[in-house]
């Protein structure tokens, strides 16, 4: 009897652990399979390899910003004595960890509402005044495939809507940092206050924890944040964070890359600007700038010039910034060559 109990406990432990591993593996596998899908004959998606490469390159890897002091428990710092080789190794490791942290959250199309009725039992009407929510708490199934059904007071048995699903899953399988009801920060008026304080990155992190990537709330908060950044030109707040790729994708899809280009040119990031325009051509291949660039096979700063001439809305500003950059670059080369 005792032996049976022990074996049952062992089997359950093994099941639980394999279930956890399976779930983690399943989540990573899903993202990988999305990356490997072919792009022929379709407009490029956020998860395509080329697009991801461009976006990671533009995001940059500022170690100082990635490992900024986060609010944690107060611990005395640890000091280690290292040789130069060991220091190089440690920086390599830190760069790998930073890359993990900079992994971009997925940009998914908005989820379609569920309105599936499983049974209509009209004769049960009047028996109850409340809804019954039945959740399946089997451990081994992914949350998207869980059965969550609702028996209404009028007898219909229907599948739960997305909001009810999120609430139930959070109730029975709580995720750290996520609250049952979304905090009032995500309302419009409160978001404005947050933007005034320049805390776009924090609000985006909070949004990532609280909402699912394809929920309408997630998209609304992200779009509002990106619009605000574009309006005030605060692109540097998100540079070297995991949200930069998503922002660039949103701006390129909405054809609002002028502010971003000006900011990049002013910071002497011409290669990044060229990659942004390359991405723009990938997404809008029938525009005039894409055709001209294709004809001339332009690279680097020429791409930017072509774009500034043809499809840019703030053409004047972009050309001014380009001029200033070229003057400073000629000055620098003159200074370096003269002595």
């Amino acid at each position: 009897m005792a032996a049976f109990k022990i074996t049952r406990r062992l089997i359950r432990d093994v099941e639980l652990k394999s279930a956890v591993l399976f779930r983690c593996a399943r989540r990573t596998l899903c993202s990988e399979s999305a990356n490997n899908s072919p792009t022929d004959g379709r407009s490029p998606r956020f998860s395509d390899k080329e697009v991801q490469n461009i976006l990671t390159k533009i995001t940059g890897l500022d170690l100082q910003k990635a490992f900024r002091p986060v609010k944690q428990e107060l611990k005395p710092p640890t000091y280690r004595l290292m040789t130069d080789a060991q220091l190089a190794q440690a920086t390599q490791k830190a760069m790998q960890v930073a890359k993990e942290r900079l992994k971009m959250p997925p940009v998914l199309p908005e989820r379609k509402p569920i309105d599936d009725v499983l049974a209509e039992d009209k004769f049960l009407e009047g028996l109850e005044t409340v809804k019954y929510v039945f959740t399946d708490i089997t451990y081994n199934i992914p949350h998207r495939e869980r059965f969550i059904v609702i028996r209404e007071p009028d007898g219909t048995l229907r599948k739960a809507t997305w909001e009810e699903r999120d609430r139930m899953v959070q109730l029975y399988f709580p995720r750290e940092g996520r609250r049952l009801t979304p905090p009032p920060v995500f309302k419009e008026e409160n978001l404005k206050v947050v933007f005034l304080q320049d805390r776009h990155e924090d609000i985006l992190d909070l949004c990532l924890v609280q909402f699912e990537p394809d929920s309408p709330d997630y998209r609304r908060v992200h779009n509002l944040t990106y619009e605000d950044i574009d309006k005030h030109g605060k692109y540097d707040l998100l540079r070297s964070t995991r949200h930069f790729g998503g922002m660039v994708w949103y701006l390129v899809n909405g054809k609002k890359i002028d502010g971003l280009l000006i900011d990049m040119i002013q910071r002497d990031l011409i290669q990044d600007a060229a990659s942004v325009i390359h991405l723009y051509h990938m997404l809008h291949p029938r525009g005039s700038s894409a055709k001209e660039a294709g004809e001339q096979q332009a690279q680097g700063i020429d791409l930017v010039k072509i774009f500034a001439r043809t499809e840019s809305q703030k053409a004047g500003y972009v050309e001014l910034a380009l001029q200033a950059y070229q003057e400073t670059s000629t000055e620098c080369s003159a200074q370096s060559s003269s002595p």
Partner: protein
Amino acid sequence: MAAPEAIELTRLVYSDVLNFNLAKDTMVHLSSLLLKHYHGGHVVIRLALGGCTNRPFYRIVAAYNKRARDSKHIEQLGSFDPLPNLYNEKLVSLNFQRIKYWIACGAHPTKPVAKLLGLSGFFPLYPMTVTKAERLRKTVAQKEALGASEEGSEEASESKPETA
């Protein structure tokens, strides 16, 4: 006197049987071995009451028939909150995989558990649920009929003094 070929044959057969038993789909039903402690007892799936004063909370539990209602159970299979929440919902959680296992082992669900499973769609609807609904509708229809007849008699009595 077992010949070496016979031993080899039995070993092969035994390994086959082992492999068959350890396959994913077959279940080793050991509940018959466990029931040797209770005479005539069986496993039931029932509601165990918990919570505080004026605040009940039920756990859906697989336990021996002879055990006390709230005492040691074999496994918890879910929960049921009888008080509705902010959104006017009564929350029921059911671990269908394990419920299937225990029913396959021969567990009997009690009436409230069977009612809940019927409402959820996992079981067909419990007959008393249907009967209750029918009785309710009958009483409502009767009340309406009574009310209509009362109104009719009131109108008749009102019109009589007016005419008189």
